[in-house]
Each structure stands twice: as C-alpha cells, then as structure tokens.
C-alpha cells in the first residue's frame, strides 16, 4: 500500500473510532478542518508510526507543522523516499 493510501485509510479508521465526522478530503483541506481534532491527529501519527515504521515529526531536523492534508502526506512521502535512498 502506498504512503498516501495508508494515511487515508488510517484517517478514516481513527475518525470512526473517535466519532469524528470527516469532511470531504482533498489535498487542499486544512488538516484541522478535516474533522480530526488534536487528539485524533495525535492518534493518527502514532498509528502511522506503527504502519509505516517512522514518525516524520521526530525524525526531521526542521521543525515543521503541516497545514493541509497534502502537506501532511508529502511530509510522510518525503521521509519515506529519503529512507529508501539511505537504505
């Protein structure tokens, strides 16, 4: 499964568990308007660490907070790419 599809399916799962109602998701959707609240985003990041094997927030040297869903997915994709190159 691609990084993108893993993220989308985890978002749907966490939203369901947390009873968060998801907005229609596009890359331009601000993460905070996706329907996930802070706690749900925290859970999402933890689940993605298990699913993908890394957490870009703690890995990257630059402190970065993604604003849109597209930013969020790219943040993960970029780290996934650099890890592939490194290994």
């Amino acid at each position, binding site marked *: 499964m691609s990084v993108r599809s893993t993220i989308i399916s985890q978002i749907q799962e966490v939203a369901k568990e947390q009873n968060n109602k998801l907005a229609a998701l596009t890359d331009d959707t601000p993460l*905070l308007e996706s329907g996930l609240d*802070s*706690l749900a985003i*925290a*859970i999402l*990041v933890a689940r993605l660490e*298990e699913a993908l094997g890394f957490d870009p*927030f703690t890995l990257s040297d630059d402190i970065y*907070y993604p*604003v849109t869903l597209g930013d969020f997915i790219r943040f993960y994709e970029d780290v996934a790419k650099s890890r592939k190159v490194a290994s």
Partner: protein
Amino acid sequence: MLPSHVKSLRDRLAGASNCQERYLYGAALSVRLADVQAGTSASSWLSSLSGRSVLIAIRDQVAAALALIELDGVARRIILCPADLPYEHFPSVIASAEVDAIVSDNDDLKRRGIGAELHVSPTCVPAQHLSSENQATEWVILTSGTTGTPKLLIHSLSGLTAAIKVEANSASDARVVWGTFYDIRRYGGLQIFLRAILGTGSLVLSSADEPLADFLVRLGTHGVTHLSGTPSHWRRALMSPLAHEIKPRYVRLSGEIADQGILDSLRSFYPQAQIGHAYASTEAGVAFEVADGLEGFPANILSTGGRVELKVEDGSLRIRSAGIAVGYLNGETSSIADTEGFVDTGDIVQLRDARYYFLGRKSGVINVGGLKVHPEEVEAAINRHPKVRASLVRARKSPITGSIVVADVLLKDGTDQDTALRQEIVQFCQERLARHKVPTAIQFVPNLNVSATGKLTRHNA
C-alpha cells in the same frame, strides 16, 4: 476579617487606568472595562449572594469573567467550573464546597436536577453602584484527581496574583491585548485573566464551541499582542492556515513541558515575538518563567532568591512561595506543602550542564495536551473488563499533544488475544472515561512487573 492591604478584584479594578479603551472581548459578547468600573451588572442578585458559597457554572467566558469580578469580596467562596466539567461531577463538587448558590447560564443544570438554594442567571448590563462589605473570598479551582473526581483547591486572590507584577502607570507602554487558548476557569487561563484585568490591557477570550480558525481571526482583529496556551494549543495553532492572522509580541507557554521543537517552531513562525515558557501548577502557583528560548530552565534559578524559592529533592522540583494553594476542600487528607512550606510538584528534573530538564511525573501522571491523566484511573476502568487480570497505563510521546495514553494489558488465563478483544476493551473504556483518558493502543503482555511493595512498576516517560 479582611486584612487592610487585601483589596477585592473590583476595588483593584477601580484604580485601573485607560479603562475607556480596554475590553473583555468574547465570541458573543464584549464588555468595556470602564462600564464594569462604573457599576455592578448584578444589582438584582449580588446582595443575595453575599457570604455564600457560589458555584460559577457559566458557559460564556466573558459572563464568567464578569461574575468573578462581581463576586470576589462579596461571596464567601467562589467555585470556578470550566465549561467542559461533566455533569456527573457537579453533585460532589456542590457537596464538598457546601455550595448554596449557583450562577449559571446553563438551563441543562436545572433540568438535570443540579441545583442549590439559590440559582441566578448572569447579567451583563452594567447598572448602579452597590456598596458591599468586602470579605476575603476563597477561590476554588478544580484539578484532576486519581479517581476521576475533581480535587478542589482553595486559593486566595493575593496568592493567585502573587506572581503578577502590576506596572504602575504605564501610559507610555504600547497597547497590550492579551489572549489565551485556555479556559479562564483553569489555573493557566485564570492567570491570564488576572494579568489582563490588573494590568493595562484588554483580553480576548474564546468560546467553548468556537473553531480555532474563528478564534485566530478574532485574535487578529483585536490585535492580540500577548497570547498564552499550552504547547499543544500552540502546535495546533501552527497547523492552522490562519496562524498568520496574529502577530503577537509575546508568546507564552505553560501547563505542559515546552520542548525545544515547539519553542523553535514558534520562534521561526513569529520572529517578532518574545517567547517564554512559564512553570506553574494549580497546587504550587506560578514559579518562574524562562525567556531564553531553550527548553528546561537554568540551574541558577534555584539560587536567585526572590519571591519564589525552589529546590530539587529526590529528583523532583519543590516550590515555596506566596502563590501556593491554601488547601484542599475535599477527599485529600494530605497537606499541600511539607512542614517547611515546600510543595512537591511531582515533576522529575535532571541536571545537565547547569540546566535542569523535565523528565516526566513522579506519579506517572500523563499530560495529554494539557489535560492530566492519572494512570490509576484508567487502569481501574480497564481492570473492570471481565477478561482482564491487570493493566499498566503509560504515556507514549506525541509530537501533537505531548503525550497520549497507551496500556499494557494482562489477560486472564485462557483468554485469546485477538484484535476484536483489543477493540472491545477500548470501547469499554470509551463508555467509562473522558476521551483523552481512553488508551489509544492496547498491547497484550505475558506479565506485568510488580515491585517488592506489591505495586506495579512504573517508568517515567
């Protein structure tokens, strides 16, 4: 009874300057401080609350702020209910604080049979002056307890304001507009409310159901200069497309450990701002503020003397100051301070290169985005599940909320460890606990470490 040097909040506001231009800004309602100075908004009910123990359960933050100003010096005791206090906790709070009057805009309270001898609705239209005899009102602040029932901490106004330096006559100062992501009924938010009222500025308050984006726009519209919140509040703000709506001169963090990541992010996002993280707790009050942009605090804070005395004993930070709470109202037999007057904050610190760093809580208390979670309460809920023998609840680090709650679960013999059971236990907890307390992940383990004293072995996060 009241020492002559202790003035009520209203008396202190009476001497404040520039009130024509100072406001309490809310989502629905805004009030000019000059109008608050001019007279009471509560003439129809204020005298009937004199000497009473008054529960302030007002959803609107501006109305709640006005009630605090009205009732300090009038009521015997005021109990500050945050907007999100679950209804099930009201009866115990009312009983413990001997509440005999409620000020509330929430009709659900009456519908649910939560009441007191007297029930009044807050009013916000300033009216005539009402003279009253001042008394030293006890301020009661709720904080979380190990069993889930809130602990009630008594403070005095002089203790609450001990850390606040009031600039004498600051007509020359640039305009100050405070804002806070906190509820002012919580210690961190109350500090900002008092700073704004006793200082020279205005204050922008959020509303319970207000989307962050709307609040940021309002903060920007009112030109917020001083903004406070927990590191988690700030991380959330930085994830908002509207974080550029504000240009604060001063960014304040408190209520959670401020790590280098969030401090650096704020510095690069708001380069014009001074960034400070304050160390405070509901029990111990405001201890110090760190302004050098680095996590932890310089070791020499311990020896600088002054208003607050600090020491580290058995690895945890201890505080002695005029800001510590007077005592507990319920359930707690232990005193807040030791015989020498020091409060053990329970925060474990480690000294490295002349700087102290926070490692976590001695008691294992988990801080989820500024909300405390006692592992014992969560374990008790999990252990009620018929297939569970024991559990250990711990923190997992989160770049979003600082920590989240996870659990190691030991099942009864012969129980199958499957994903369905994991979900069943999570759901079991969801029915019994507030959302931030529910374990976000459950791991089945073959055993749990028990110490020689028969207690679960906890490791600090």
